[in-house]
């Protein structure tokens, strides 16, 4: 046995299938072989992850990109110094409506028929999302607006924890929801709701969860940071293999770990039969594109959460740090470091004809 330096890294995760790369890297020794001693902390809420990162009680966490941006801009409390060195997953969410009140016809045709359905509703229907500053909320609003509805006037959005969202729908406390896997399929299997659309249909290969770290930690721990990203890159490649999905579902289902339901989790992993499959590696899920951050920020401004003065491009560049990812991708032999940064030019965005967002403008101004 050769003694070697190990660095302790505290990583926060939630009980979600998107946490798979962190658990796989830990379980299969990818962190250990890179000299990291990782302590996992399973947290009950996104707010806990954001607070513990901000106050240094966690070094890194699986996070929602809009929540990281909101934390940095001081929209939920203090301005926190958080950065995103890599993406973790693409896709995986679905929009589900209950069976009542003729919601069946909504998904027909090219555009969701939300306006027709709204006419039959006496009050603004309530929709559940997992966090205010979530990809789920932004994509749900985007989809409703695409149909010509005004999310703030025509709907009421409330936050319901993912584990409670199916029960809330069954009990009629919400008319629908947008949540991550496996909850859309769970609602469908239980017969309490109909999946209107998977979020990958709204925005193909959309960024979902990311890795967030404290800016100070990243500066003070350059080598552990590189090792952390490398370990996760290795785990992401494993998570994307359908042949591994049974094992990974079992790992996520362990009662002493995340305790997720095995079957519904398996459906959301690559090769599964759910409405959405999470992607962990294919399509450069790990690349934190500035264009993605700008899209989230523009949507936040669109709904009045951000003032007109905030420089969105500057915020995106400050938070999303592909420069920290590049050496790790190079070291893993995926792309040369110079090539990694050019992936920015391949970042995909939803619906280029959407008047609320012009990708041409974003790309031009971020150069």
């Amino acid at each position, binding site marked *: 046995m050769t003694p070697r330096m190990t660095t302790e890294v505290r990583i926060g995760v939630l009980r979600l299938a998107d946490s798979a790369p962190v658990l796989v890297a830990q379980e299969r020794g990818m962190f250990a072989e890179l000299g990291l001693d990782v302590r996992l902390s399973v947290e009950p809420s996104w707010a806990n992850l954001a607070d513990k990162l901000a106050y240094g009680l966690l070094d890194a966490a699986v996070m929602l990109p809009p929540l990281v941006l909101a934390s940095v801009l001081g929209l939920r409390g203090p301005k926190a110094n958080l950065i995103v060195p890599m993406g973790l997953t693409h896709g995986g969410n679905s929009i589900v409506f209950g069976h009542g009140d003729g919601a069946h016809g909504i998904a027909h045709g090219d555009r969701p028929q939300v306006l027709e359905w709204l006419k039959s509703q006496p009050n603004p229907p309530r929709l559940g999302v997992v966090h205010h500053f979530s990809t789920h909320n932004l994509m749900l609003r985007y989809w409703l607006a695409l149909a010509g509805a005004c999310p703030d006037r025509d709907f009421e959005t409330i*936050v319901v924890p993912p584990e409670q969202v199916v029960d809330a729908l069954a009990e009629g406390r919400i008319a629908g929801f947008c949540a991550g896997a496996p909850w859309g399929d769970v609602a469908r299997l239980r017969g309490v709701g109909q999946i209107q659309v998977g979020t990958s249909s709204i925005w193909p290969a959309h960024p979902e969860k990311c890795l967030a770290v404290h800016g100070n930690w990243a500066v003070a721990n350059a080598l552990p940071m590189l090792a952390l990203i490398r370990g996760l890159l290795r785990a992401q490649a494993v998570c994307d293999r359908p042949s591994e999905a049974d094992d990974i579902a079992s790992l996520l289902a362990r009662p002493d770990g995340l305790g997720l339901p095995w079957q519904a989790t398996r459906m959301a992993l690559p090769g599964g039969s759910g409405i959405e499959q999470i992607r962990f590696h294919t399509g450069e899920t790990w690349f934190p594109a500035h264009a993605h951050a700008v899209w989230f920020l523009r949507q936040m401004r669109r709904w009045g959460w951000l003032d007109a003065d905030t420089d969105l491009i500057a915020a995106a560049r400050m938070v999303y740090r592909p420069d920290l990812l590049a050496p790790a991708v190079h070291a893993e032999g995926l792309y040369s470091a110079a090539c990694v940064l050019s992936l920015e030019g391949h970042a995909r965005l939803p619906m280029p004809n959407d008047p609320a967002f012009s990708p041409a403008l974003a790309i031009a101004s971020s150069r």
Partner: protein
Amino acid sequence: MRILLADDNAERARAVAHVLAADPGLVVLHHRQTDLLADAVIALKPDIVLVDMARPDRDALEGIRQVTNRQDRPVVLFVDEDDPSFMEEAIMAGVSSYNVLDVPLRDVKPILRAAMALFQRHQQERDRLHKAESRLLERETVDRAKAILIRDRRLNEPEAYGWLRRQAMTRGLRIAEVAKDVVRGKEGSPA
């Protein structure tokens, strides 16, 4: 000031409510577990929400003004930017506070501090209980290991204990850990 206490631990919630109720200027509100936390905030219109950080529905309080167009007053996470160690302590204690924006910092801090003290005490009691339980469990394990050694290696009790102690010293483990291995059958069978 109206304080909504979102804590499912009834005993702790009672203790916090008891302390806060001593101040005649405070009204402590509870919400039914069957209600969504967001609904309770809309219905009860508290100035401060004290929330147990172990609750998954804590996320319901984030950005609540934007979430409900009927809530006209913004609710924000309590932060004392000048006192980061206080914030860290609150997180460690497992309690956080959301306030209506116009409630001044100096009014909130003592309330949060009082809640923190009770959360910390509760945590310490739980830790103590946990330690006591595991000590008891360890003692049982050592007894079972001794019984195995007495049977399989034909040792008397002091010899069995001596064996465990020697193993612990050479392997750099605690006696309880060696005992655990013996009980699991790793070391218990005669060589």
